């Protein structure tokens, strides 16, 4: 008996998944793609615009192009600053976590707390905290004679948003690094002690190399997190003062929902999406390539 006819129908099993994927991601995505290549005058009448929106977006001499470029550079700067602070700080915190006893549990719970707070609550906490009339930070800094006003001063706004992100996310890197440190066999530390190596060379030659893999993952997660950040700065500054803290997501939401500039916003979304995908892909190929080199 020939069973191939039956076997060919196996693809039917995939149909439910394809339907779910169609509705969950493909259809909404295609709406954006439609908007990005067409223009409309309302009444659901669309006409073809080709790559016009994209040209507009990627040309820094146009108003939209300028906006996009400004937000992109602002966002890249933010990600760079946040990573430069959180990665070393996370490693430092992980090295200070106790290795045994009840203190381990206590330390881990305390460190994990910021991660358990919803994003908008984090935003509200820091918005209130930095207010110059009732917030401890705002009142304290003003009383100390430091010029500080989140709603008027760009430097103040950046300061609060960066400190807030560090407060919120350093824990994740610390926990990742702690797990990485726990995975180092005791024999390495023993060997270093027998060699007479000092604390710095134990860190430099044993701990840091052994943390490389978790650090790559941690940096990827933090880059993505900070590159797509929306809720917290939106709650604290709303993107201001002016455009000072308008990162890509904030700017995009303004354009799409505030100004209903759908064509530009659709092109904006797709380019934004493409940038994050590219970064992910580069990270992924880099790590798998490095792993293969290690294994060889």
């Amino acid at each position, binding site marked *: 008996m020939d069973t191939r006819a039956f076997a060919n129908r196996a693809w039917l099993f995939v149909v439910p998944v394809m339907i779910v994927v169609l509705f969950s991601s493909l259809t909404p995505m295609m709406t954006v793609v439609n908007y990005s290549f067409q223009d409309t005058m309302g009444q659901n009448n669309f006409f073809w615009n080709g790559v016009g929106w994209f040209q507009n977006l990627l040309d820094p001499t146009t108003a939209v192009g300028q906006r996009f470029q400004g937000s992109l550079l602002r966002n890249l700067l933010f990600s760079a600053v946040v990573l430069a602070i959180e990665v070393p700080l996370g490693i430092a915190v992980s090295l200070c976590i106790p290795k045994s006893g009840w203190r381990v549990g206590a330390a881990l719970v305390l460190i994990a707390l910021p991660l358990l707070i919803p994003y908008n609550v984090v935003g509200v906490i820091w918005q209130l905290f930095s207010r110059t009339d009732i917030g401890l930070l705002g009142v304290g800094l003003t009383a100390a004679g430091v010029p500080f006003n989140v709603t008027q001063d760009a430097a103040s706004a950046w300061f609060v948003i960066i400190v807030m992100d560090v407060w919120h996310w350093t824990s994740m890197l610390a926990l990742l690094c702690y797990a990485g440190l726990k995975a180092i066999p005791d*024999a*390495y530390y*023993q060997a270093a*002690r*027998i*060699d*007479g190596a000092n604390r710095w060379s134990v860190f430099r*030659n044993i701990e840091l*190399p*052994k943390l490389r893999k978790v650090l790559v993952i941690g940096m990827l997660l933090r880059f993505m997190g900070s590159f797509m950040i929306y809720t917290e700065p939106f709650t604290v500054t709303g993107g201001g003062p002016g455009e000072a803290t308008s990162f890509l997501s904030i700017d995009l939401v303004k354009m799409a929902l505030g100004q209903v500039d759908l064509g530009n916003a659709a092109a904006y979304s797709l380019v934004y999406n493409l940038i994050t995908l590219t970064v992910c892909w580069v990270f992924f190929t880099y790590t798998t390539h490095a792993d293969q080199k290690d294994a060889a």
Partner: protein
Amino acid sequence: MSLVLDAVGLKRGDEVIIADASLDLQPGTMNVLLGPTLSGKTTLMRLMAGLDRPTSGRIVEDGRDVTGLGVKARSVAMVYQQFVNYPTLSVYDNIASPLRVQGLAKAEIEARVARAAKLMRLEPMLKRTPAQLSGGQQQRTALARALVKQAKLVLLDEPLANLDYKLREELREELPRIFAETGAILVYATTEPGEALLLRGRTATLHEGRITQVGPTAAVYRDPANRDAARVFSDPPLNELAVTVAGGTATLADGRGFPAEGPLAGLPDGACTLGFRADAARVATQGGGLGDGLPPSGPSFPGAVSVTEISGSESFVHVVTDAGLGTVVCLVEGVHAFEPGDRVAVELDLGAAFAFGPDGRRIAARGGRAVATGPGLRQPVPA
């Protein structure tokens, strides 16, 4: 340098980790710590190295009390079962690392690294990092790092356990020779009785944190002082039969008696354990002996084969005895294809067996050394 452990003990809370370990280690000697996993070999090494501080007893180095002196103040090198090297440093820098810490001159470091690399045959790999080496090469790098330090105490903690068979054989030959030239005290921990015998030197058997016997390796093998030492030094596991001696007759658990000869001869009446290694038990097929054809010199038990382990020139046959005496492992020369369930008889060579008292201690029969050499020891091993 000589190192003396004087009743060294380690307790953690109420838990005894090491109990009254006494050892006398002389320069240029090979000292084997033989015991199963978790018997305390590594802990004992950590105490010797000064990585841990004993809670009782003294550690004396050349007459100087070094108890509680940290590892930095001692001259120690150690190699582990895992391949422990600095991951980002090249093989050269790895080997040179202990010398750099000591602050030696560059020329001196270069000369010593080159020598160690040559001995460990690592010369072509000096520029690579550990991740680019095979397991054997990684372990040779770790060994070179221990060698280059010219430490007075070299601790090798199952260094060959993770290597493949061929390399293990090779390094087991070379290691004692290479390190002996440095005049260091060599301490080698292993779980394998065969490895201890190949390394020669002196052996201390460990059981649950206690040293059960110390002496020249071959002598400990030939003359285990107690049941724990005999168990640790037997592979396959020691066969044990409970017997009761009364009036020159030994009675097994199934009620069968046989003349109390060999180690049982002249024993006072009472219960004891008859322990014997696989090479003291022969297998006779029913209807024709497999052995030398001589009539059995000791008791024999009928049974059925359960498993045969063939190791090449010899086979270990596991026989389940009919009388409910448990499984007895027998050594048979050559490759024999017994099938599970085959009917055989186990012939015990009493002359190569040991008798242990109820407290586990060896009961000396006929006074002094009970079994100097016997059929149980087929190859003479220099003491």
